[in-house]
């Protein structure tokens, strides 16, 4: 029974490690300028966690196998070094390991979240609501029209509560249900939630930020690869949460300009 148990543990341990090593399921391709440290950090952590995982599981299995055998007369042995040794080992090995991880991780995090957006970053406003994203481009005048919450009406497709009759700035604002950005240009994304908590997550873009109702946050990023990607909501926001998404189109500058013209015509 004990031997079988030991073998089972080892099979499970190694079996669960195989898909990880083979990257059967792994992070999506990185199309951001800031994502590289994240991926490195991920592999680093995976290596260290994997080693700890395999080592301790296999050790557990070996001990179960070894010491469940009846050994009449044999006296009980203490682990070499005793508890003190183990504690020191834990502090040295795990301690240094996690502190190293923490330091590098903090560096990666800071490089993303603690840097200001570039001056020429393209401002785009995203509004999350149950259960869709809507995006607003400032238009030619480069300024967003003021938002009038009492005028927000999905029935009239006035998702941002713009008063185009009275606000000059609002007249040329471009509102779309999909997000288009030029490749290799920094985007300054202004995040606003119209109702409850939501989240803005594009796995390929290595971007993940919650919308906080009553508190407008902003993030900035640069996409490096043309293509179609999915923006998903990761913060439970109600019954339509699973279906709250939008498409992100990374396109060349020309395509982007044309897209803006096309959208402006639809307003």
């Amino acid at each position, binding site marked *: 029974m004990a031997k079988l148990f030991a073998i089972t543990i080892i099979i499970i341990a190694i079996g669960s490690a195989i898909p990880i090593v083979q990257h059967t399921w792994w992070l999506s391709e990185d199309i951001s300028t800031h994502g590289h440290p994240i991926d490195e950090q991920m592999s680093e952590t995976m290596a260290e966690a994997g080693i700890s995982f395999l080592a301790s599981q296999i050790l557990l299995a070996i001990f179960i196998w070894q010491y469940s055998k009846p050994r009449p007369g044999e006296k009980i042995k203490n682990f070499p070094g005793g508890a003190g040794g183990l504690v020191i080992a834990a502090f040295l090995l795990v301690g240094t390991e996690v502190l190293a991880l923490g330091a590098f991780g903090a560096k990666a995090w800071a490089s993303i979240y603690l840097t200001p957006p570039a001056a020429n970053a393209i401002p785009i406003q995203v509004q999350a*609501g*149950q*259960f*869709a*994203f809507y995006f607003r481009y400032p238009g030619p005048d480069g300024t967003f029209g003021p938002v009038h919450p009492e005028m927000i009406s*999905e*029935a*009239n*497709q006035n*998702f941002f509560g713009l008063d185009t009759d009275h606000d000059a700035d609002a007249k040329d604002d471009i509102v*779309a*249900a*999909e997000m288009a950005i030029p490749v290799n240009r920094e985007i300054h994304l202004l995040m606003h939630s119209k109702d409850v908590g939501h989240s803005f997550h594009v796995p390929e873009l290595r971007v993940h930020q919650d919308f906080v109702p009553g508190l407008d946050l902003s993030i900035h990023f640069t996409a490096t690869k043309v293509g179609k990607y999915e923006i998903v909501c990761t913060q439970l926001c*109600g*019954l*339509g949460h699973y*279906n*709250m*998404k*939008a*498409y992100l189109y990374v396109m060349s500058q020309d395509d982007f300009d044309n897209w803006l013209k096309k959208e402006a015509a*639809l*307003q």
Partner: protein
Amino acid sequence: MKRAYRNHLVILLATIVVLTLGTVLLDQNVQAAGDGSITGSVKLSGTAPHMKGIDMSKDPYCVKQHENSPVKMENVVVGSGGGLANVVLYISQGLTGNEASAVPSEQPEFDQKGCMYTPHVLAMDVNQQYKVVTSDQTTHNIHPLPAPGAGNIGWNKSQPPGAPPIVTSWKAEEVAISVKCNIHPWMHGWFAVVKGPYATTDDSGNYTIKNVPAGSYTVTAWQEELGTQTAKVTVSAGGTGKADFTFKAK
């Protein structure tokens, strides 16, 4: 012998009572289901307001349903010759209590098709059963929001593909109850709950209110953006009253 005679008497009396009651009821039904009608058309004068296009890109299924026909908002739909569609016409004055409270038996249908509501405006009688069905292969959510205090209680249910229809009714008169789909924010429609006979204009703006008993009435036309208009109509027994409306574009 004597007892049997008494029994006969009881049965006889009972039959008489039932018959009289029955005739009274029937008589009322006949009155309520008048055979007259009111007909006419609703038009829009001036240029129709610009209807924004609807971007369904959030749900690829919905997009596929309209690949070669871009969808527009349906707040103001103008048909051939300026006819206004989706206008609800109902009798706001002149009906007796019985006539107003008679409830039609047929169940009007509110379909979710291509991630839009058809019809955009569904008129019905108070306490008349109506049906919400879905023809789509994506999950929809139906969320009517009656005005607080109007006497109707809102609800919020989802309909996965192939789910059975939701059959229900409204307790109080209300023109009109806004209906939303929470999963597809652009999906928006109306329930117009009225007392007595009603009609909704077709694509060319024509309508006919059937089963109108003889009498003179005030007919009200309601359009979600342009508001209401009224007209006086007189209907002779079995005859046809006529009322045309023209809304001015804002």
